[in-house]
């Protein structure tokens, strides 16, 4: 039944829970179908919707290629994964959970560095002394590149980091990092501080539509129904324009 709307939802972790709660508040009961640990599901109230449970970063890929019509995942992952984001997806509605800021953080002991311009200058001195650029540990290669280019910072190299990025500078794997933070406590515990103008993105979970998915009339109706429920349900947030 390919013309059903494919709705990709996070398959694990806190984001999965929060999604389930938000959909329940909107009066949508999501159930897993088939085997108990299956990766497919349905929404009792909306027979035209088929749910796919996949990892948050995979949801971004699904939306990028149109494998799913709709998905809920972090804006950070979508902007990181999809280079030509505006051509491929539309952000329909921020969800009000899954908040995380993608930030540039440097060692607290770098008392001479408080903003991106300082960082650029620092990287020149660093090159002269060490014969190589400053290393930035991050899983956000594309967000980092775009942001650093906008701010005119060039003397750096990204070192891919898939976990415990905040520990990279202490382990001499990098000099600075680009990572997500909510309160900044983890960064501080690792001897790091966020640069004054170093917030790359204030991200949260979003309901996102793929522009490349095969939008049958049936799928479009299902999308409208989901959006309506999520906007009208108790605890629902206002439209995107009223946010931040």
């Amino acid at each position: 039944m390919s013309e059903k709307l494919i709705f990709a939802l996070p398959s694990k972790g806190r984001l999965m829970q929060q999604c389930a709660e938000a959909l329940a508040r909107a009066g949508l009961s999501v159930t897993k179908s088939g085997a108990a640990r299956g990766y497919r599901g349905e929404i009792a109230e909306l027979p035209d919707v088929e749910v796919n449970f996949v990892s948050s970063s995979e949801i971004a890929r699904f939306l990028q290629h149109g494998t799913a019509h709709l998905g809920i995942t972090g804006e950070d992952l979508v902007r990181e994964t999809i280079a030509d984001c505006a051509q491929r997806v539309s952000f329909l509605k921020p969800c009000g959970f899954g908040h995380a800021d993608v930030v540039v953080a440097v060692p607290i002991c770098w008392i001479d560095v408080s903003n991106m311009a300082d960082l650029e200058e620092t990287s020149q001195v660093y090159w002269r002394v060490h014969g190589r650029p400053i290393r930035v540990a991050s899983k956000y290669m594309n967000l980092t590149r775009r942001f650093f280019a906008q701010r005119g910072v060039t003397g750096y190299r990204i070192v891919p980091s898939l976990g415990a990025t905040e520990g990279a500078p202490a382990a001499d794997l990098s000099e600075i990092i680009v990572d997500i933070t909510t309160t900044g406590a983890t960064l501080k515990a690792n001897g790091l501080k966020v640069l004054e103008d170093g917030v790359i993105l204030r991200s949260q979970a979003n309901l996102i539509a793929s522009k490349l998915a095969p939008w049958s009339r049936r799928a479009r109706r299902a999308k409208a129904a989901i959006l309506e429920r999520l906007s009208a349900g108790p605890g629902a947030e206002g439209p995107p324009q009223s946010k931040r």
Partner: protein
Amino acid sequence: MIAESTQRFEALEAQAQRLMAIFTRAGYEHVAPSIIQPANMFLDVVGESLRARTYVFTDPNGDELCLRPDLTVPTCRLHLARHPQGAVPARYCYNGSAFRYQPGGDTSAHPREFRQAGVECFAASDREEADAAVLALIVEAVRAAGIATFHLRFGDLGLFRALLGALALPERWRRRLLHQFWRPEAFRAELNRLTSAEALRAPALKAEVIDRLDPSQPSTALNALEEYLEQAGLALMGTRTLPEIAERLLAAAADARETPLAAETANAIESYVAVKTPARAAVRALHQLLRQYRIDLAEPLQAFQRRLDDLDAAGVITDEAEFSAEFGRNLEYYTGFVFEIVVPELGPKSPLAGGGRYDSLLGEVGAPVDVPAVGSCIHTERLLAVLQGETA
């Protein structure tokens, strides 16, 4: 592009053979550096914009490798493998594939796989002579290939460095302006900051640290800084050293006490950057402009003139060449003379060939000293497209 036709492949090969024959006849040794290059060293020396477009992969051994995004760095590595001391005169030519990710997709105008035919000239002691010889050779090759109408564009980053050297400026300001040169907005912002006493004194950095430092006594800065960090309960972390932090703080302390840049000096810099003139008239135009500001660049301008004369003697007609002081701004690794060959069929955004002087690259790739280097390459697919009348 999924594939090229056999016909096109053969046409490119035949064209390449003709180009290489011209290069080797001129005394350039034909070399074929590896397509697969170690990622680390390579990516450290190319600018970030090229780095983001380089195909990088990990082999089964866990080593990070890349497909070369150009042939200049691989040729530098080849040279250093033969002559680790670097400063040995050598001339190389090559024709081979380079690979770049194309953000707008893989199209025939911007293919992700393309061939560069070019030359590199290392450790030639007379820089202007070498600059002129390389450009003359590329022009000869382009003409021999069948291009009759083209336009030359010149820039000279060495002139800008000479201008900064002739102005009364603290060395750290020179370094900063030179570094920002290729980013017009940041450059202007820095110039504005340097002319404003208020901006120079703005407590961009912790005033309480700055106040403890005496720029005239740099040796005491380390102790003062160490003391401060200890009192603040901050431990040094990572690879960046205390002297590096001290250097920047001392510079800020010195800036706060410095007399701002005279408005006249800032004007001189801005007027220079705005110069755009036929190359033949450039020397006189720059003399006149700089005389107003009582700046004397006699020597570098003589060198500029000598390069033009050499080009004329080699049969490159420079009458219609254009000099722009700004040209070369966007090409970070060049350090001196830069040029492009533009044809009407393709327009200025897709030059047929380009090149210039890059005196610090060999040092960055591993030579123990900086080695003078100048090179150029032809975009062979573009050349063929123009010759076959395929351009829209």
